[in-house]
């Protein structure tokens, strides 16, 4: 709910921020999840986006695009806000969700290195989610780390996957947090 709206907002910022000619052939996906795919005797772990029928569509590395991105959620830490509540209500709840933005790019076509791509994306990512969500006081977006070791990211995201990735390609992983502060009793769960 909240995280999906924030990820859509981030993707909108990425679309607008990557308008340059070299970034035209890009595909920006939403929230993906890692699923096993059985290919003969081999099991591959691949990122997929689930549609409304819960069918998984592969969103990872692909020769058709020069730049591909998707998000994955790993964990949410829950804590109480420093601001106290009003009336009988306790303090607001803060959900800090760890999200990874995985970026696959063709360095030779984009004319940028893994490190440079990470820096470009970090500059585009918004700091706050500005739209109103019922029950949510505010949403902060904070980049935590940028991983640029392609082989390590390949092993983390594409276990068993048969895809040749040479020095002309890169994988970058930007780890960021979506921190949502909300009041439980004002949060509409019926939408």
């Amino acid at each position, binding site marked *: 709910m909240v995280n999906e709206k924030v990820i859509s907002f981030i993707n909108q910022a990425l679309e607008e921020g990557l308008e340059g000619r070299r970034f035209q052939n890009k595909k920006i996906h939403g929230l993906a999840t890692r699923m096993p795919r059985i290919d003969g005797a081999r099991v591959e772990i691949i990122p997929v986006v689930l549609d409304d029928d819960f069918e998984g569509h592969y969103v990872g590395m692909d020769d058709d695009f020069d730049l591909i991105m998707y998000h994955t959620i790993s964990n949410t830490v829950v804590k109480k806000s420093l*601001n*106290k*509540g*009003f*009336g*009988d*209500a306790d303090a607001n709840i803060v959900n800090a969700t760890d999200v990874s933005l995985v970026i696959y790019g063709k360095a030779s076509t984009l004319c940028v290195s893994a490190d440079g791509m990470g820096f470009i994306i970090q500059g585009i990512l918004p700091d*706050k989610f500005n739209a109103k969500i019922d029950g949510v*006081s*505010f949403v*902060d977006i904070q980049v935590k780390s940028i991983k640029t070791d392609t082989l390590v990211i390949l092993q983390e995201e594409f276990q068993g996957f048969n895809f040749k990735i040479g020095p002309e390609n890169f994988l970058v992983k930007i780890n960021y947090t979506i921190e949502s*502060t909300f009041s439980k009793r004002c949060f509409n769960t019926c939408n």
Partner: protein
Amino acid sequence: MSTLIYNPCEEEIFDPVCDPCLDDIEHGRIRSIALIHKSYKATIESDPENPNLWADGLNAKLIFIIPETLGSFDGGSPVEATGYGDQSTKVTGYNFVANYKDPNYKGNCNFYNSIKKSSNWHFAFRTETLTRISGKPVSITPKSPIAEDLNSEVVWDVEVKWAEKDQPCPFVTPEGVFSCDFLA
């Protein structure tokens, strides 16, 4: 013949209560407040746990209720006067201060600008299950501070002051009175 000014009479002392299981512990925070016009105070105090009296006062604009606040009460600073005989000082009353925050910043500006000019209102304040009413009318000083933090909230920060002889005694909060539904 000289006249002695002191009170040798015995005050009536009420029996203290004992609750070994502490089932009746009351928890803190001023969670709601009300302002009661001095002309209606006696009516409310005749049966303070009766929500109908509160509803009538609300309809007649003799009671204003802020159902959700965040506040504290200092319990009173004793006012001491010189004692007599072997008594060095005696407590003649208290100066009370309550502070509360009201999150309805935009909507309540006119309310606070009007009420702060009046000295005709008694202050009722609710904790977990109990409410008390000031014995004397209060002075109300609203402020609306703004902090630098982007994520901070702009709320009304209100100081309420009064002086009276005794501590305000609590009564059980009347059912449903301190809620937004009651005001609708």
